[in-house]
């Protein structure tokens, strides 16, 4: 259960102050799949980075399973990212000179999981995201965009996080490949009971999530669904 309370993040550029996140509050239940839509530059990435402790809010708080991020020192925030969060980025952000398996093993190595165990789990995860087995040991800069995003999703799942934050995961992919990634995310949310929050301006993706939020002028509003879910 994730509770976001009155979150504010402001940036100073010159003598101007902008507040892409200006008083955002919402709650997400465990295992839910939700999306955030909004115009480019509306603050979606900023909000996501606050939820994933990549950045610190100017004010407000994020409470994950009763633990407030606001009071945590940097070391604990690193641990929070390692244990509780899985990131999926628009530009994949894999380590280019490492193989697919090595990339997926990386978060497990940081958690101190034994090598044999993490190798086995990495292979299982790559199978789950349907990466061709013969590409498991291929360097990720030699994989296609869709394949890279599958590896990135497997890496996000590596430490069985409570929350997966995906920032425009289909933004760099063609429509068909993007569709596959969306399918993958929603099936993972179902099968693993993992909470997934997807930022997208892809209407069809937003349509498929249980809940959909719109970020506008720093405020978050939930869109009321009329049609069927999923």
């Amino acid at each position, binding site marked *: 259960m994730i509770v976001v309370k009155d979150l504010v993040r402001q940036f100073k550029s010159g003598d101007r102050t902008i507040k892409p996140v200006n008083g955002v509050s919402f709650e997400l239940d465990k295992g839910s799949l939700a999306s955030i839509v909004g115009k480019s530059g509306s603050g979606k*990435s900023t909000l996501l*980075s606050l939820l*994933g*402790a*990549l*950045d610190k809010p100017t004010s407000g708080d994020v409470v994950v399973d009763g633990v407030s991020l606001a009071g945590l020192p940097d*070391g604990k925030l*690193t*641990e929070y*990212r*390692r*244990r509780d969060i899985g*990131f999926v*980025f*628009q*530009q994949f*952000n*894999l*380590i280019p*000179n*490492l193989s697919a398996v*090595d990339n997926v*093993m*990386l*978060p497990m*190595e*940081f*958690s101190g999981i034994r090598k044999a165990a993490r190798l086995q789990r990495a292979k299982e995860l790559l199978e789950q995201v349907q990466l061709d087995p013969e590409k498991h040991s291929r360097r990720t800069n030699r994989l296609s965009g869709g394949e890279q995003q599958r590896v990135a999703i497997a*890496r996000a799942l590596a*430490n069985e996080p409570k929350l997966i934050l995906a*920032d425009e995961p289909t933004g760099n992919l063609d429509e068909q490949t993007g569709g596959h990634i969306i399918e993958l995310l929603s099936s993972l949310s179902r099968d693993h009971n993992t909470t997934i929050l997807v930022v997208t301006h892809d209407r069809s993706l937003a349509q498929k999530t249980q809940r959909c939020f719109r970020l506008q002028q720093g405020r978050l509003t939930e869109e009321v669904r009329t049609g069927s879910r999923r």
Partner: protein
Amino acid sequence: MSVLARSVGNAFRNKIRTAAVVAVLALAIGLALAMLVANQAVGAKIQELNASVGTTLTVNPAGGQGFEGGGEPLTTAEAETAASVANVTSVVGTKALRVQTATTATSNSDSATGATQQTGPGGGFGPAGQQATVTTNLTAAVDAGTLGNRNNASGNTGSQATRTLPITATGIGAEVDSTGKALEITNGTGLGDYTASEAKALMGTSLAEKNGLTVGSTFTIQDKTFTVAGIFDAGTTFGNNAVYVTLPEAQTLAETPDELSTMIVTVNSMENVDSTKTAVQDALGTDKADVTQGQRNLETAVNSLDSVKNISMIAFIAALATAGIIILLIMVMLVRERRREIGVLKAIGARNRTIGLQFVLESLVLVALGSVVGAVIASLASGGIASALVSSNTTTTAATTQRGGGLAGTTPNGTVPGGGMPGGGLSGDGQGGPFGGASQLLTSVTANVSPGVLAAGIAAVFTVAIIGALVPALLTARIRPIEVLRGE
């Protein structure tokens, strides 16, 4: 995939750049190691020079050194006078004899008048001078060769084809060679009491071998039978063609009791050598004795070697610092370049210390490669670098150092034949002086790229590299995880 494996992998991500970095590092590290090797070699040489000359003064009769000049011989009484001078720890008298193989002595006797024989000055061995010529049944271990024949011929109008060379026999007042250096006895014992007359002798290895003698064997000098008490190794062909007997024994053989060829005066400390030299000179009188100081002759050589040592140390530190700065700059560049990737690692939960360690290890991989290539460069270059340093520094002092004294011949490390004649002064050889020490240095420097010094140098390189790499490693700690979103 471990941190180490990732670091190694990262070091080779851009192979062309890695090669360039390793090449530049290797140059700096190679220079540093070469300088360290040169520094060590020069340091060792200085120590050797100081140790070999140490705190001894040589006293020769006034107006005469060895075989040249004239004047009155030194006496035992003068040795006592010298011994009573302040700061003098010991005075060792020597009495040099020129020993001819019986047959040669007879054939030469027409030209040799009385007890002394004047043979021309020359490089191979010094002629008699004040040395008494006596006969022996020993055969010299050195073949006459061109020098020997020329030397002998100069005192003889006859033209014999080959000759047996004389053997150096010296009476010594302590267990030291004719230059005051301690004798290295390899077999048997010393002579015990060097102030007593006894028919025992110490013999050089090659001379003993040539005559088939071992410890306990006997031979004759002037028809008197001597027992070989010990075999010594002087380290040189010339030095090993020698016999030592006790001082009184030599004086008896020469029929000149109380006479000394030279005195070796040992001073209690280096600082007192100068003042003691003057004091001994005053005590003996300038008309009676010439006091020469081995150290004086070497001072300029040692000083110039000292400056070489300092230059090489400064160059070592500078090259080491350069290597450190190269690492620092390269790593700062890499950290900046991989800002976003560091953000990724932080976003997926890497600790600061894991990332820092990865960068330090990566720099160590580069340094290790640079060290390997650098060590090769150093092995090839250190001889040349050392000789360049030494030759540019010693040519200016060559003129002053050539005024070699009696001790000069042994100064390099006792391996230079030539100027080391008993009491020999200006032997005209030039090779045996401290100048010879400088040229000897070159060969010993090239031979001295020791694994120990290289290891110490590489340890220093790694220490500097770790310091250089820590700065960028700490910089990675300051990179915020939000960097992962840069450019998105």
